């Protein structure tokens, strides 16, 4: 999105936009972290390809959800209902799948997307057309989704549906792999959800970069008054960003179900904060107008890798991943703040 920031950096030799510079920092930190871990903890399997793909398998749902959230954040909003929606979708789909016996994979996917779409439409309408603060609207959405999930079922239930299980256990073998202790070559694998997540990342990358809607998101998030004067339909863009986020959360919730294969009210606790943290680490600015889908993708991986590295370092306390993640979040927020204020004074 260098076009948007070009007038700020016109006199500098190399105008790098905030989006690019934040992305570079994110990727550099992730690579440095991962390579260091691979060298230091090679005995714990960090150098094996499967370790990396497990990171993807674990976090496929979070990748999709964070991407949706990034879109809302680029447009200058926020959505904290994603965790609650994921829990609601998991509970609703499990109840549906266990009723259907044998079939119902597609209908449960539709159910998940439908729940996401309904939340997206309602929240989008309230935020864009009634001009209510997105934080409050989606806070209510989060409450509503979790409460609704509890009304459907307060128990944790496992999916006992064969057609669903066959999809959930699908493993896509890759040509790369590692040699195990017995000297046998083991192929690395991905779950179905990872393929969906990667497809979503690719599609959104194209959407943000080369479509009118995508550029409109940056314009609205950057400065909605100028966007309005440029002829962007600000309200519709905001509305659509929430709808898209809702749909992606629906899909992400389904992928979450594919991975955990059970439904519970307490599922996906703190997912909204994980997704926001991943977006921020990935270089999406909370003030809007700056962000990148690839960055969000790396942000989720960074978040996942922190957990693995902390464990490999022998810090067994359950509190370390949370504290490290928060420290990282703090670092990136201050970095963003410094970048913004530097720009203001320049």
């Amino acid at each position, binding site marked *: 999105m260098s076009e948007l920031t070009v007038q700020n950096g016109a006199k500098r030799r190399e105008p790098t936009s905030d989006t690019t510079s934040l992305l570079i920092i994110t990727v550099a930190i992730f690579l440095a972290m991962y390579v260091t871990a691979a060298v230091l903890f090679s005995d714990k399997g960090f150098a094996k390809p499967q370790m990396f793909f497990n990171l993807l398998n674990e976090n496929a749902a979070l990748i999709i959800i964070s991407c949706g959230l990034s879109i809302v954040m680029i447009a200058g909003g*926020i959505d904290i209902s994603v965790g609650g929606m994921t829990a609601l979708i998991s509970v609703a789909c499990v109840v549906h799948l266990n009723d259907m016996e044998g079939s119902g994979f597609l209908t449960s996917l539709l159910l998940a997307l439908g729940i996401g779409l309904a939340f997206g439409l309602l929240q989008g309408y*309230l935020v864009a*057309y*009634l*001009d*209510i*603060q997105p*934080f*409050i*609207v989606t*806070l*209510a*959405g*989060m*409450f*509503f989704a*979790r*409460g*609704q999930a*509890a*009304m459907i079922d*307060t128990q944790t239930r496992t999916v006992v549906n064969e057609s669903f299980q066959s999809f959930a256990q699908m493993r896509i073998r890759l040509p790369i792999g590692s040699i195990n202790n017995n000297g046998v070559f083991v192929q690395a694998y991905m779950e179905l959800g990872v393929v969906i997540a990667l497809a979503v990342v690719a599609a959104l990358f194209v959407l943000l970069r080369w479509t009118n809607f995508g550029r409109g998101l940056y314009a609205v998030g950057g400065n909605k008054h100028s966007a309005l004067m440029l002829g962007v339909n600000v309200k519709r863009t905001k509305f659509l960003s929430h709808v898209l986020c809702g749909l992606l959360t629906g899909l992400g919730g389904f992928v979450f179900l594919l991975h955990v294969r059970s439904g519970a*009210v307490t599922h996906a606790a*703190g997912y909204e*904060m994980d997704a*926001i*943290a991943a977006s*921020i680490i990935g270089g999406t600015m*909370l*003030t809007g107008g700056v962000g990148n889908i690839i960055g969000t993708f790396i942000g989720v991986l960074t978040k996942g890798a922190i957990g693995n590295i902390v464990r490999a370092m022998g810090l067994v*306390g*359950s*509190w*370390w*991943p*949370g*504290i490290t*993640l*928060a*420290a990282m*979040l*703090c670092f990136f*927020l*201050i970095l*963003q*703040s*410094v970048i*913004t*204020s530097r720009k203001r004074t320049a």
Partner: protein
Amino acid sequence: MKGLLKNPLFVPVICLGLVLLFNLLTNPGFFEISIKRNNVGNWILAGNLISVLNNASELVILAIGMTLITSASGGQDISVGACVAIAGGVILKILASKTGAPVPVAVALGCLVAMAFGAFNGILVSIFNIQPMVATLILFTAGRPISSWITGGLSPRITNSVLDAVGNVIAGVPVPTPIFIAAFCVAFTFLVLRFTNLGLYAQSVGVSDKAARLVGLSPRWVKFIQFVIMGLCVGLVAFIKVSRVGSIQYNYIAKDIEMDAILAVALGGNSLSGGRFSMTGSIIGAYTIQAITTTLLANSVPSDALPAYKAIVIILLVVIQSPAIKAFWARRFGASRPGRLADGPGATGPGVQAIAGGTAGGPAGAVAGTAAGNGRVEVAG
């Protein structure tokens, strides 16, 4: 009639009235108050109303801090629940240790730690200009892990006569002590608001950062102070929470209380984007929320499903208060000043004009101008 509708206390009082009316119609037994002997032999008052007052104590104290933060910074602190876990962990750790430190020392240290974390939030918001909700997201994420780190993942149980008196009842007094603590905090807050400029400064900064700077206030300091005050509130709440059961569960203590506190501020008729506030409104709002919770529980709604009902209340409230709906009503019934209603953030108004008008006359005159501007609003009930 018009004056009544404009009163900032209109929304909160109506809400509380509706909740009580609902109970009166469906379950008159809700209002019964009996006096019973508890298992230690003290006479105590029991009943739903007493339990509303008792359980709302924490929320009321947090609503005070949240109102000030909302007013000055235009955002909310979402880390309060997590910070209560930290402060509770500190208090518990000190009391459980073999140093034999008395309760006041432990509480003072707990409050200091909470204020330090409040200051951390305050620095992020005031110096680094990060939106409050995002800045407090850091401690929201880290708070409970830090708490479990402090206590080493353990939740020791403490039996202490002082804690028991604070968390339950003092021997001979039939009313639960947390009610008195909350009442004391409320009274203290009103005194502070009445005799200092704290509330006035917070509102000036919240209405317009720039205008407040022009009249000689330091927006950074004003915002920072609110977060430190919130830290103190958090410390007190942690003390009550620890006293109630003599222990904490760092993953569950004060869970979702930040959401309730924000809701209390909204329910109190305050704009969540900062500026003017009504402390009385927030406090009534806090009691209303506890009344809603108790009512739902009394009607055997599972506690996990409570949030769904609260969500509906939030949405109804914000929709009614939204600029688009206000403009619609103004058009419909031809309100006298449609321009002001249609003009986005409605929190500006007399205050800004007064500040802008006062700037020409130098700082002293400007502060007087602000005071005059806000004097029309009920600052502290």
